């Protein structure tokens, strides 16, 4: 109802004042009413005294007048004549002089001698002997009596000659004139009433009154036996009267009373002016208080409204306008607080925005900012044609740096990379750190070819080692490139495709790659495989296949390479290339490696126990080599399956050393110390030099299949194979050739002096049971096995899909 503060303030003040005024008015009015009644009572009391006094005076006056009249010699003489007619005429004459209405002559023995009213009545006794007795004692007597239905002021005086010889009775009628006279003197309405009470009936008859026609209502309202000296109240409201009753005479059943009355309404009317003044004052002050309340309320609510508006501006994000502070009161303090709040919020919001869109480590924009910018840029392209390119990159050996040198080193690398990228690019290009070691670059308004150029520049820039506390850190990168609108209709797709291209580049070690829709299918499979890998170990879907290595000198199987196969319940056999890279990215490779190691060591131990000393080679990924627990784990497995360490060979690709040659060296030393054989896999695809390899405790070198498969057609390649074999031998290493698929290759390798050959020409990878069967039945069977001459085995060799 009173939602607004102003309304409430106004209502409160006005209601309070109105209440006080109404109360005051009611009290004053009630006091007035009481005063009026008390005043009337007082007036009535005074009036009654005055009335009594007036009646007394009237009596006195009339008595004296009568006495004077009675002393008139002529009258006395006439009376002395004893002639009734003379007496009556004399009485009339002299009574008329003093305005008497009735005259009577009463003898000393109280017989009525003459009566101006009843001329021919018989002699009778005077009705009011008491009056005569009183007159005899006091010289005169008077009272109001009822005669012939009229009230008379009777006066009895003696006729002195000089002793009383008879009594003169004079009657003065009590009429409206007398009442009016009395009213003039008392200020009260005066009425004379006669009780007409008979047996069983009560009532009053008005004899004389100042009320005129209203006298009848008084007669009907007057109680039957009104107590004298009490104030009675008759009538209601405007008709209300206060009365006093004076009993004048009791004669038989007749009661003669005088009634003095005062109208309450008239008396109160004198207070009406006061009441009207009060009402006028009340209305005026009410009006003033309303006006004052409105002024005060506005004084309070207007600045509050202003503050409210300021707060709403802040809510809408507008922090630029300060609140006007010109007041020194509480509202001024509030406004000042609001200003401080506004500044605080503005500062914090900009900080939050900074944190939300900026990477705190490198001070580069973060993923959110990049996505936003990318979406806006795509919007611009849509409107103005043209194109943009997204470069997605991550650092090749960042995790290694982080794990081995600590996070400070990692942070330093990230900052340095960010700095180099920033320096490399135009001001308008955006470089963002998406998280971890992942960076993204947005190139707007460039040709697709230019994006590749930029990628090359980045690769070149990051070839320079990063200096950390005097130690050079070699951090490589892979860059995926996707163009808009060619490689996606929206920001999300473009980003994802750049990501896919990056993995392709990483896998193919090409440095950078532009997205190709072909990548997509693999990528999709990888994504679903990723979740399946978790299941694979638990559901026993993994298998180890073994491909024999044939000793070229004895043409007998000397060892096997254990190769991982995933027998997918719906997709059949999945080659390692399909899921190993993902396992490496997710860290799940640790579990796979452990499974492969345990299975191959178990199988090797089993064969060993069964009298078949078949060396087993196991492929170890570069990441496994960074696992410091690897040597301990292998030692435990060897012990568990009672497998001689010398029966197990670990095959490591060149890249495994390149990431951190020093650490790799240490791990290899420990593995070597266990008695394990070590092999360099895929030799020739990397950049490692033989001199470096010579320092490592390795026992074997595996020539990459790409050389072996081309050596028959290409003279240069055959030269490389030959020199590699010679160099390996010169370093005391056994040399194994992979990818031997025909007899010519086999013969050539024999001629070149290669130690072992492995390939489909001899056997594809086989399950353990089939391998045992193969050994028994094949021409390469175990019978020709030369135990001391076949120490080199490679295992878990990913079969390249290309």
């Amino acid at each position, binding site marked *: 109802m009173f939602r607004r503060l102003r309304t409430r303030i106004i209502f409160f003040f006005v209601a309070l004042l109105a209440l006080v005024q109404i109360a005051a008015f009611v009290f004053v009015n009630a006091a007035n009413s009481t005063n009026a009644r008390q005043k009337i009572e007082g007036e009535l009391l005074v009036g009654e005294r005055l009335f009594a006094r007036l009646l007394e005076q009237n009596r006195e006056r009339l008595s004296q007048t009568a006495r004077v009249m009675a002393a008139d010699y002529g009258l006395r003489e006439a009376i002395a004549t004893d002639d009734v007619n003379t007496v009556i005429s004399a009485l009339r004459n002299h009574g008329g002089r003093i305005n008497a209405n009735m005259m009577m002559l009463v003898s000393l*023995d109280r017989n009525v001698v003459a009566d101006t009213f009843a001329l021919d009545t018989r002699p009778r006794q005077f009705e009011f002997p008491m009056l005569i007795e009183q007159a005899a004692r006091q010289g005169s007597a008077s009272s109001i009596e009822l005669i012939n239905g009229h009230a008379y002021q009777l006066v009895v005086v003696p006729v002195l000659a*000089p*002793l009383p010889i008879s009594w003169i009775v004079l009657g003065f009628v009590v009429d409206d004139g007398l009442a009016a006279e009395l009213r003039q003197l008392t200020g009260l309405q005066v009425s004379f009433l006669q009780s007409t009470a008979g047996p069983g009936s009560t009532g009053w008859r008005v004899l004389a009154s100042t009320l005129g026609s209203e006298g009848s209502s008084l007669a009907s309202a007057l109680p039957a036996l009104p107590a004298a000296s009490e104030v009675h109240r008759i009538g209601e409201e405007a008709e209300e009267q206060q009365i006093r009753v004076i009993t004048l005479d009791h004669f038989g059943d007749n009661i003669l009373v005088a009634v003095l009355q005062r109208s309450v309404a008239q008396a109160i009317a004198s207070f009406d002016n006061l009441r009207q003044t009060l009402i006028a004052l009340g209305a005026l002050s009410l009006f003033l208080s309303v006006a004052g309340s409105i002024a005060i309320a506005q004084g309070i609510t207007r600045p509050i409204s202003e503050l409210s508006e300021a707060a709403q501006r802040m809510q809408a994000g507008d922090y630029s306008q300060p609140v006007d502070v010109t007041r020194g009161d509480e509202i001024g303090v509030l406004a000042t607080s609001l200003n401080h709040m506004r500044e605080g919020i503005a500062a914090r919001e900009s900080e939050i925005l900074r944190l939300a869109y900026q990477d705190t480590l490198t001070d580069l924009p973060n993923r959110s900012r990049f996505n936003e910018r990318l979406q806006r840029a795509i919007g611009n392209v849509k409107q103005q044609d043209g194109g943009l390119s997204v470069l997605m990159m991550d650092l090749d050996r960042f995790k290694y740096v982080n794990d081995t040198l600590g996070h400070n080193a990692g942070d330093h690398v990230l900052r340095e990379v960010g700095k180099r990228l920033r320096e490399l690019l135009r001001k308008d290009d955006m470089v963002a750190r998406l998280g971890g070691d992942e960076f993204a670059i947005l190139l707007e308004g460039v040709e697709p070819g230019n994006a590749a150029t930029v990628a090359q520049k980045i690769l070149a820039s990051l070839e320079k080692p990063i200096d950390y506390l005097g130690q050079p850190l070699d951090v490589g990168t892979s860059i995926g490139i996707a163009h808009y609108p060619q490689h996606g209709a929206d920001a999300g797709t473009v980003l994802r495709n750049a990501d896919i291209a990056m993995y392709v580049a990483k896998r193919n070690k090409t440095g950078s790659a532009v997205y190709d829709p072909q990548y997509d299918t693999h990528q999709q499979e990888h994504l679903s495989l990723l979740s399946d890998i978790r299941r694979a170990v638990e559901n026993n879907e993994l298998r180890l296949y073994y491909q024999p290595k044939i000793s070229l000198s004895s043409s007998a199987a000397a060892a096997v390479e254990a190769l991982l196969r995933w027998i997918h319940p719906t997709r059949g056999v999945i080659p390692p290339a399909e899921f190993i890279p993902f396992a490496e990215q997710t860290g799940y490779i640790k579990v796979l490696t452990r499974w492969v190691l345990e299975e191959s060591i178990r199988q090797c131990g089993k064969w060993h126990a069964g009298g078949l000393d078949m060396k087993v080679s196991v492929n170890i990924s570069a990441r496994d080599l960074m696992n410091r627990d690897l040597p301990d784990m292998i030692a435990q497995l060897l012990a568990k399956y009672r497998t001689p360490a010398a029966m197990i060979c670990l095959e490591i690709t060149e890249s495994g050393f390149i990431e951190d040659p020093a650490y790799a060296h240490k791990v290899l030393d420990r593995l070597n110390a266990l008695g394990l054989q070590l092999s360099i896999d895929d030799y020739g695809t990397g950049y490692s030099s033989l001199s470096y390899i010579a320092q490592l405790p390795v026992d074997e070198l595996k020539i990459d299949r790409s050389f072996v498969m081309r050596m028959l057609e290409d003279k240069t390649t055959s030269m490389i194979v030959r020199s590699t074999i010679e160099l390996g031998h010169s370093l005391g290493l056994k040399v194994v050739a992979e990818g031997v698929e025909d007899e010519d290759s086999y013969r050539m390798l024999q001629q070149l002096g290669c130690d072992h050959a492995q390939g489909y020409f001899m056997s594809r990878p086989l399950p353990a049971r089939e391998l045992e069967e193969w050994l028994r039945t094949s021409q390469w069977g175990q019978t020709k096995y030369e135990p001391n001459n076949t120490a080199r085995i490679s295992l878990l060799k990913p079969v390249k899909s290309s």
Partner: protein
Amino acid sequence: MNAMFLRIAAFCALGLFATTGAAAEFTATITDGTGQPLRGAIVYVSDANAASGNKAKAAKLDQVDKTFVPQVSVVQTGTPIEFPNSDNIRHQVYSFSPAKVFTLKLYSGRPAEPVVFDKPGVVVLGCNIHDTMIAWVLVVDTPWFGKADAQGHAVIKGIPAGTYELSAWHPGVMLPVSAGQIEIKPQETLSRAMKLAVTPVPGLTSP
């Protein structure tokens, strides 16, 4: 005035004794109801059968200091009474009493004619000018009457022997009261005590 009554307790004197001469002398001692001497009370004896042989003597009723002097007097029927005015103001003496109604017009000094009181009865006199002036004249048909002095003694002298009716009067009793028969012997001096119950009479100051 019925209530007014007269009680006369007439006691025989300790003894009636005759005096020398033909005429006898009668002395009455009159007291009021409380035993106080009733000054101004009138006592008279009358013989209904005997014709009054005595000629009435003239009497005088003076007016001094707006007072009749004497206020109470008794005369034989037919007595002319003079009303000399001793004051230096005028009076108008009147009477409405049935025994004698008269008016002396305003006068001073001695009026020309005395007023003859020719009927027995009580005559109340007043002055029309001065309401307080009042006098009573008892007119009786006998020459033998007396008026009580301050001691209540009223003396009647020269009463011939015979049987009389004894009466007493005072303004306080309005009409004369009979006290019974009285036997008068020659040369006898007779005394009698009489009691007269009277009402107070306003205006009666010096009876």
